[in-house]
């Protein structure tokens, strides 16, 4: 093989490898980015208490994260540690962001038709008066929030039309 042929062949092989890797997605092979919590996520269709509770929790996290100008995931990670939960329970501004997130979630559920207006109004009242130290557990367990209306929780899917 000639010297020139060897150089051209080697350069072509190197370029081909890189181009094929890029074409197969090599430039973007990295962890998925996280969404903007201030952009409304689509309310997932479904029925039953568990579904409504999940949607309420997720929407509440988005709302609180948007208030705090962090991602929903950053908020969840900070709430996972005892120190993080203590900070949210003891700081009125942080607690207010959680409360705002819950109110937004109730608004979203009402808009989507998953919560009747009367139930939504009752829940807003409950959230507005919740002590700061109960806000986190309420976001984690929105089913419990529904139970605070004084209705039988297992029967809620029926009340909600599930």
């Amino acid at each position, binding site marked *: *093989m*000639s*010297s*020139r042929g*060897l*150089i051209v*062949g*080697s*350069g072509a*092989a*190197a*370029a081909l*490898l*890189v181009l094929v*890797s*890029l074409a*197969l*997605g*090599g*430039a973007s*092979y*990295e*962890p*998925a*980015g*996280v*969404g903007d919590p201030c952009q409304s996520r689509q309310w997932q269709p479904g029925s039953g208490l*568990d579904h409504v*509770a*999940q949607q309420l*929790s*997720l929407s509440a*996290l988005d709302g609180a994260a948007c208030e705090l100008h962090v*991602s*929903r*995931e*950053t908020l*969840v*990670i900070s709430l*996972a540690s005892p120190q993080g939960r203590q900070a949210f329970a003891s700081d009125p501004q942080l607690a207010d962001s959680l409360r705002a997130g819950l109110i937004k979630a109730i608004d979203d559920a009402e808009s989507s038709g998953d919560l009747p207006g009367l139930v939504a109004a009752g829940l807003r009242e409950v959230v507005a008066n919740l002590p700061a130290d109960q806000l986190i557990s309420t976001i*984690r*367990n929105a*089913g419990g929030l529904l139970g605070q209306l004084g209705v039988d929780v297992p029967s809620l899917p029926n009340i909600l039309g599930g």
Partner: protein
Amino acid sequence: MRTALGMAVGLVLADSSVVVLALPEIYRDYNVSVSAVIWVLVAFNLVLAATAVPAAAIARRVGPARGAVAGLGVFTAASLACGLSGSLAVLVAARCVQAAGGALAAGAALELLPAEVGSERRAAIVWAAAGATGAAIGPAAGGLLTQLVSWQSIFLVQAPAALVVALAILPKARAEAGGAAIRAELRRTGRPHGAANLALGLVSAGLAAALFLLVLLLIEGWRNSPIEAALAVSVLPISALVTGRFAGAVADVRGRAIAGILLLAGGLAGLGVLPHASIPATFPSQVLLGAGLALVLSALTETALEGRAPQAIHGGWTLAARHAGVVLGLLVMTPVFTSDLTTQRAAAEQAGTAALLDAQISIPEKFSLAQRLADRLTAESGKVPVIAPAFDPLPSAPADRAGELALEADLQNQLDRAATHAFSASFLIAALFALAALLPIAFARRATL
């Protein structure tokens, strides 16, 4: 004798990379950071670079066969000390001594080879090929020993091997005259070939990434065992050996050097833009890297040695250039990839949390799983976690079961993406190092390279 000399060079230069697959075990055993354990590699290469030329001069002064035996003796003793070391500091110190002994043995071997193979040019080719083969085979051999026995066994196996080689050279050392004739010859030492040695250093900086980062990616990033990693990276030396057999067909060293550099840069860039996390995805890059290694190291070493006397001194310069390059590569790329690992760990944590939040599983199962995953992260103490145990046992409810299986696949995908991406910038920097080697070749006079 020719085999013994080749083995001496191969053993010494394999040591610059043989511990690569053992580094994760070493830093676990000694409970140190990646930045600290890297000195097991850096110290060896640094001392080899610093002592290669003086060691070659000493070998010529005392007689090359005597120098080879003495160097291998020191190498043997230091290898034993490495294998029996009880702390990172002792290991690094023993590695320094090992490198000094190795430099003496490798330089002396080059001085002895022309008499064995018939010409200085042929000696340079055999010497360069033995070194390249050793460096390429080193990681795989080290990986096999690490998993089958222990990382200490890498050094404990080297010791008797070096001793056997020393004993094979011993009769020649006893018969060697040494002394005045060789001292007189020292005056003829010419200047080292600047362009070839500079290019060798830059190429070696890139190769350090190929041999070190690829192994770390396979073991620490993708969680393969050392044996799996050893088998995976064996594509590179196989490619180097196959290419080496045909490299001589192109007589023009400049053409071989440029082609080799292009292949190295392409292979490294290919590793920097891997489209998914799997061992076969690394094979095309390894083929290019092996072929490039065989072409460029032989071409540049031949050029650096051709027409220059004494061979041992100029061989010492090539060793110094290569191992200084390895040190440069490791020192530049280690902080880059350790920083990227931290960044990607956070990105994976965010992506994993998003996947968990959006998973189609019930809230109680979601919280239970989140706790188990958090426990896995704690248990792995900052390393890329093995998440499968967190999903065992799977829930009995079919909907949750399907949801958890989908989530496990998604989380593993995010971890693979993060681990792979953490090495991307370093591989691309390594590719730039390799490409930079074209500059000294471009500026060298055509007649000399």
